[in-house]
């Protein structure tokens, strides 16, 4: 057994690279094989590679090296890797960190070691709220911004009455509570709600209630498998065929693609990035597509922007000191092929333009990725939570 252990230990030791001083390491830490890998995973890695391609191979005279790890959706594995990367392996910045539980865990460590973490997938509003740190940035969006964008834009399109199908736990309840406030602001009315337990298979009763309510909009305030099931069944019950819109705050283009063009009709969502929005996004997305074989999710695209601006900030400030680099990022506008009108705020959230998109009817698609049409661009200031309302202790209220 000793031999076995010794072999294992040697193997592990070899797995830890020794040349920590030579290269400038940036780490992408995400879910490479689980459910979140659809809109993070290999695509996030490819986006980071594109950022390095565009920035150039060296920063501060050191060769940029991209390291990748799969946290397998486990917060404690993520925390372990983050500690090792920051403390032992000389990784300067950690990117992506899909799943909020893992993101929050890595943020704790990043604050202790004072090295930046740039989150491009995790959407919990706690990240820029009570858990905010000076070394963390949420580069894509939070649930607040997505849902506010959806409500504001749909109200502008004439939506008056709303019905909620809500996942019965903190995430769903918070999302609904936020959206109810926005709806009240627009003068709309919530005509009903149906709470469903997590991991529900049969949404028939909830969808029938929603249909019976006659609401203009049915909101799916859920996620993961529940979101997929409820969307598919909403299509089978003909929710959108009956003239109701389906509002889905959290869904990305690759997820819509996976559901299939037929199943997503009438879906309205907010995205942080739409691949064919303009020439710049399209050109960038074609490069991404050539590498990965899919069009980018908004969260994957955000990873490109985060790394590119981080590298620029390091080069411009001539140091890897996290305080200096983060101050530089906050002081300069964030603008690139992916992000429009970006400002990194004191609470760590990147305020930028979001897009209200509607799924295209299957017979009007011009290509397999022509899944959505942008209904309107929502300026960052209209979507993101005003700093004055932030629960982040770093914001002086």
């Amino acid at each position, binding site marked *: 057994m*000793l031999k076995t252990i*010794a072999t294992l230990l040697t193997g592990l030791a070899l797995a830890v690279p020794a040349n920590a001083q030579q290269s400038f390491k940036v780490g992408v830490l995400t879910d490479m*094989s689980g459910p979140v890998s659809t809109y993070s995973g290999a695509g996030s890695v490819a986006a980071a590679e594109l950022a390095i391609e565009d920035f150039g191979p060296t920063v501060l005279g050191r060769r940029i090296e991209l390291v990748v790890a799969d946290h397998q959706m486990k917060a*404690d594995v993520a925390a*372990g890797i983050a*500690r090792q990367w920051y403390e032992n392996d000389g990784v300067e910045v950690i990117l992506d960190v899909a799943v909020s539980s893992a993101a929050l865990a890595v943020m*704790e460590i990043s604050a202790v070691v004072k090295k930046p973490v740039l989150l491009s997938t995790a959407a919990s509003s706690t990240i820029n709220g009570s858990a905010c740190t000076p070394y963390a940035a949420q580069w894509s969006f939070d649930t607040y911004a997505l849902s506010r964008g959806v409500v504001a834009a749909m109200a502008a399109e004439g939506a008056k009455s709303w019905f909620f199908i809500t996942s019965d*736990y*903190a995430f769903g309840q918070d999302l609904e509570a936020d959206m109810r406030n926005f709806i009240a602001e627009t003068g709309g009315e919530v005509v009903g709600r149906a709470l469903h337990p997590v991991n529900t298979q049969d949404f028939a009763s909830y969808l029938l209630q929603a249909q019976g309510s006659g609401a203009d909009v049915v909101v799916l305030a859920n996620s993961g498998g529940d979101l997929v099931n409820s969307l598919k069944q909403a299509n089978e019950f003909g929710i959108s065929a009956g003239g109701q819109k389906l509002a889905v705050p959290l869904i990305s283009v690759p997820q819509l693609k996976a559901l299939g063009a037929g199943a997503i009709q009438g879906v309205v969502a907010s995205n942080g990035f739409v691949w064919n929005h303009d020439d710049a996004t399209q050109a960038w997305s074609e490069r991404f597509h050539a590498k990965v074989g899919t069009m980018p999710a908004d969260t994957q695209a955000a990873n490109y922007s985060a790394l590119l601006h981080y590298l620029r900030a390091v080069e411009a400030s001539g140091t890897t000191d996290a305080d200096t680099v983060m101050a530089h990022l906050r002081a300069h506008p964030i603008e690139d092929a992916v992000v429009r009108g970006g400002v990194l705020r004191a609470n760590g959230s990147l305020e930028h333009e979001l897009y209200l998109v509607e799924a295209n009817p299957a017979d009007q698609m011009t290509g397999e990725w022509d899944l959505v049409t942008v209904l309107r661009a929502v300026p960052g200031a209209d979507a993101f939570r005003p700093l004055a309302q932030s629960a982040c202790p770093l914001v002086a209220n």
Partner: protein
Amino acid sequence: MAPASAPGARPRLLHPVFLLLGGLAALLVAYHLLYPVFVMQVMCFALLAVAFNLLLGHVGLLSLGHAAFFGTGAYVAGYAAKVWGFTAEGALALAVLASVLLGIAIGGLALRRSGIHFAMITLALAQVLYFIIFQTRALGGENGLQGIPRPRLLGLIDISDNGAMYVFVSAVTGAAVWAIWRIGRSPFGVTLSAIRQNEARMIALGYNVQQIKLAAFALSAGFAGLAGALKVMVVQLASLTDASFFISGEAVLMALLGGMAFFAGPLIGAVVVISLQLALVASPVPVPMILGALFVAVTLFFPRGIAGMIARR
């Protein structure tokens, strides 16, 4: 089922003294060669696997719900340390107490049945607990409990840095594993093995089999809870994964991979599984796939597990 770990028949390489010395040496080497937090995580899961095998290996009870105890230990210790400001040993003690009580509750129900029914009841009750944690706001829902401090030992000794924590975790895990080993060789442990081998005869001999099984279940739950509590002190967070079926499955995987008929089996299994999970984070092939393939290979070709392979030589 593989042959029992009867004293005397134990192969020399797996003798406890060798294991102890080897373990100490490995701990020292590991601290210097590897990242200490990883080694500590391995130790916590090794304790979970050994605790789980107290049921499977000794009594022949397959529990599919050990995540309930691991998770309870993790959340109770985390909450006590973070919110109530418990000291390290206080948080551990409370976590163990909670897990033992839960073990008595779950075991009391599940042990009314045997075999697959027993396994499914443990699984179902563990899932109930999982969803309770999921929906409890105070426990952070799907984000888990984050930013748990490493509390002082006895309120005096600072164990917040990795070196001190390493010694603390090694000592507690070592003591707990030794205790489980002792339990296995005590008259009580022999009774457990006897129940596994011929339950009807034990009943005929006048043993209160039900009560003995429940005691073993509660002990196993308590040690699993201790493992969860230690893990929380190491990684400073309790996540929903800790209470999910995933952990229960991992305990089974570690015990079978390592060899459940051997005391060292689950230890070896835990070292292999967790090391692979952590060492292969950068591998192009998804980790669960590699572990799955390994599991199939070992159960097909080495049904007595890795320990069985070593012992055969």
